[in-house]
């Protein structure tokens, strides 16, 4: 009994802090216990990732953009090249998630992509999107301040939110506003005057598309005194970020968001956030905060177990890992057709590296509508056909749904789902497709 609950808890942990675990993999972790499983995931934040690193980074297209005088065909050719480069990069990331040996780091990278949501639709150059993605991967677990400072000087972000065009004569408010509203302290904790002052502080920040480096244009910077969140000084952008992340509201905002994406949605004022503030501390420690989340009693509660709908990307990566689909769903050779996980994720409403807006994707009911249900069912059947189902086929019909639950890292099926699965237990592909489309699996 005790073993069963440890196994169930580790399965939950891996569904949330990773992309799920197959039954055999779970069995190997149970003897060492839940806390050891948490430490293993946290340890993975800082060590090499042989699985993920084995997935080759695609080459990047020439980012030179045709000028206004370019012909239509030249522009279309350049657009097509960038589009192809982006597609390759999107699939690279999904395959990296499927292959990773350090799942929490990839999950956290996905989290930061949703938090500092930046879209390739405006950034265009896939190399800039790659550099931002690597930033989340390499610095996402350390200090939130250091991460935010780096994101503010990240090329993709600077083009996405127009920091790059923020000039002394006419400050551009886009980045300053979203920095406060969406990245650090949340709405209601600042005024329009703070937005204006913040925009002045970031004037002169620029980025070279040629060298892929941030640089500072002193002539465009407003060196004047700014009044920002009741402080006054000759602030620059770095100062603004330091002020923001040090606010008590910022800790609550960031920690509530972490809890919301790993456990269940909460607002910054939720009492569970109180329990996370200590480890986040003055070092803005992300890895430490994650450990506290996973070790919190509420993390293993029923509320967490039914608290999140899987986002399409984690849904697809999870089922690809469980069913050994990584290679099968990747581009087929020889110029034939292709079906990529990134394309399926896009069809489900979550195009990697291209969130709908700077707010990122929503949660839970955001993923529940008839269009998504339809594509989910189609995708489930198509992917089930490509999966290696020998472990299902090799057991008797009556055992199949239980074996399948174990393969998918679930404790079992609810009665309604179990009886529906029973109807197709003699047809492995259909059985697996139904299971993947079931409410039990869609809820993480």
């Amino acid at each position: 009994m005790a073993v069963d609950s440890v196994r169930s808890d580790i399965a939950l942990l891996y569904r949330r802090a990773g992309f799920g675990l197959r039954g055999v993999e779970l069995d190997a972790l149970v003897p060492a216990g839940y806390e050891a499983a948490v430490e293993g995931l946290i340890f993975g934040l800082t060590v090499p990732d042989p699985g993920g690193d084995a997935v080759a980074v695609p080459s990047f297209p020439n980012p030179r953009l045709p000028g206004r005088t370019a012909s239509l065909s030249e522009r279309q050719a350049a657009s097509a090249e960038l589009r192809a480069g982006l597609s390759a990069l999107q699939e690279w990331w999904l395959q990296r998630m499927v292959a990773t040996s350090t799942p929490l780091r990839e999950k956290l990278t996905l989290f930061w992509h949703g938090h500092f949501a930046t879209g390739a639709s405006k950034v265009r150059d896939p190399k800039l999107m790659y550099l931002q993605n690597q930033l989340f991967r390499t610095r996402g677990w350390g200090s939130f301040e250091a991460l935010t400072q780096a994101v503010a000087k990240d090329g993709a972000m600077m083009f996405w939110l127009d920091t790059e065009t923020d000039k002394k004569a006419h400050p551009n408010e886009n980045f300053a506003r979203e920095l406060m509203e969406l990245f650090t302290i949340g709405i209601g904790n600042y005024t329009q005057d703070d937005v204006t002052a913040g925009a002045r502080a970031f004037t002169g920040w620029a980025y070279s598309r040629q060298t892929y480096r941030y640089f500072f244009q002193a002539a465009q910077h407003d060196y004047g005194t700014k009044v920002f969140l009741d402080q006054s000084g000759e602030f620059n952008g770095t100062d603004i970020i330091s002020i923001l992340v040090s606010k008590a509201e910022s800790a609550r905002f960031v920690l509530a968001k972490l809890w919301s994406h790993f456990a269940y949605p909460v607002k910054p004022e939720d009492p569970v956030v109180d329990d996370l503030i200590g480890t986040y501390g003055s070092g803005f420690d992300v890895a430490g905060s994650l450990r506290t989340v996973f070790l919190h009693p509420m993390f293993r509660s029923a509320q967490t177990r039914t608290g999140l709908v899987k986002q399409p990307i984690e849904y697809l990566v999870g089922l690809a890992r469980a069913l050994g689909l990584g290679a099968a769903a990747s581009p087929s050779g020889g110029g034939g057709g292709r079906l990529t996980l990134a394309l399926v994720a896009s069809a489900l409403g979550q195009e990697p590296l291209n969130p709908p807006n700077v707010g990122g994707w929503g949660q839970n009911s955001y993923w529940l509508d008839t269009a998504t249900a339809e594509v989910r069912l189609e995708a489930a059947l198509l992917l089930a056909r490509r999966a290696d189902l020998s472990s299902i086929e090799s057991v008797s019909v009556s055992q199949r749904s239980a074996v399948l639950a174990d393969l998918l890292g679930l404790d079992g099926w609810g009665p309604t789902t179990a009886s529906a699965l029973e109807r197709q237990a003699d047809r492995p592909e259909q059985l697996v497709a139904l299971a993947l489309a079931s409410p039990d699996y869609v809820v993480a």
Partner: protein
Amino acid sequence: MTWTSPPQPSSPSLDDPGRPDQPGGASGLSRRQFLVGAGVLGTAAATLGVLASTRPWDQVAKPTSASSASASGPLVLVTLYGGNDGLNTVIPYTDPAYLSLRPNLGYQPSQVLPLAEGLALNPKLPGLLSLWKSGQLAIVRGVSYPSPNLSHFASMAIWQTANVTDGTGSGWLGRWLDSAGDGPERAISIGATLPPALRGDKEAAAAITGPTLTLPGDSAFQKAYAAMQTPSPDRVGLVADVATSGRDLLGIRQRLANLQAPASGGGGGDTGTGGTHPTGAGSGLAGPNGITAALGVVSDLIVAGASAQVYQVSLASFDTHAEEKVNHERLLSELDGAVTAFFKALDGSSHAKNVVLMTYSEFGRRPAENASGGTDHGTAAPLFVAGPNVQGGKFYGEQPSLTRLDADGNLISNVDFRQVYATVLEKAVGSDPAAVLGGQFQTLAFV
């Protein structure tokens, strides 16, 4: 920089080469699904491709069933995401303050499409000008709400919930669905994700990406899928919600299938093959045009006599902080073409006499341009209301002053968007506005 729309991915490359489709309807993920799902990167022409070949009701004049006849509406809601620049949409071109606020971004009097009262349409809106001239386009000026919020998310939430305090709670049309209580097909959103406006506490609108819904798998598979959605006490919270979305999918699929079934025996099955799309956009479409395709689906459903009382389509990327002119013109041109094609497709249909289309965006933009060739977040903006029964060729509400601005340099509103909602709820949706909006709002006379 200027960018053309990305070219269409070539559809054959998206087909599943691994296994042929099985008989009995078991098929791979359809091209349409993938293409439509690819969303931002431009794929709606694929929808049009499907429309051109799978619209069996195309040439079948269908009698109206009693349930689909409607004395008012439907309402077609056009969401413009990002904050549409009202001052460069309906342009106060005779006001000297306009060009002094916008020396680079403003339009010269010679460039605009004059309406009346010193206002003109953006040069990229010739189709809307025609509607105005024929009395089918009304413009409501200076629309916003008390203490406007300059955040995209907060302001869009306020518009979508009609809760001006903090934008929380159910969607305004979701509350209407809750009170109507007869299923998701009463409101249909075209697109991969459902906007909060159409989500109630109990009911949610259907979201579809094309005019038909074909479930994968054979009959036994589909029956098992249907059984899996059965409500049951063992399902609560999100697990129950997932099952509800599955049941809604089965419900809307059935309704769409009924709509396509020929009214009298035979003839409906193959008439769509090779037919041309009534919007004229089905063939020879130069580039992707998501809102054109989406409004094409809506016009198809209306002409076919669908019982939906509300439709929703959207167009994104109006957040023009930088290099606004070229991007904004491209968006307005897309909107203009889509709306024009939509009304052309409806022309003559007995179901389309009372159609009311309205646009809205979360806010307008700052009157003064910024240094990036764009504009920052603003407040009040005009919105369009169009349809055969609309009291068009007229303005409603006052034009906000360009010289009396608020503390942030933004326009001061004189029409509360809930007045517009109250009007369309009463006249197009056929519902009690006070119940949905939680209070009385003076209606406007545009319909």
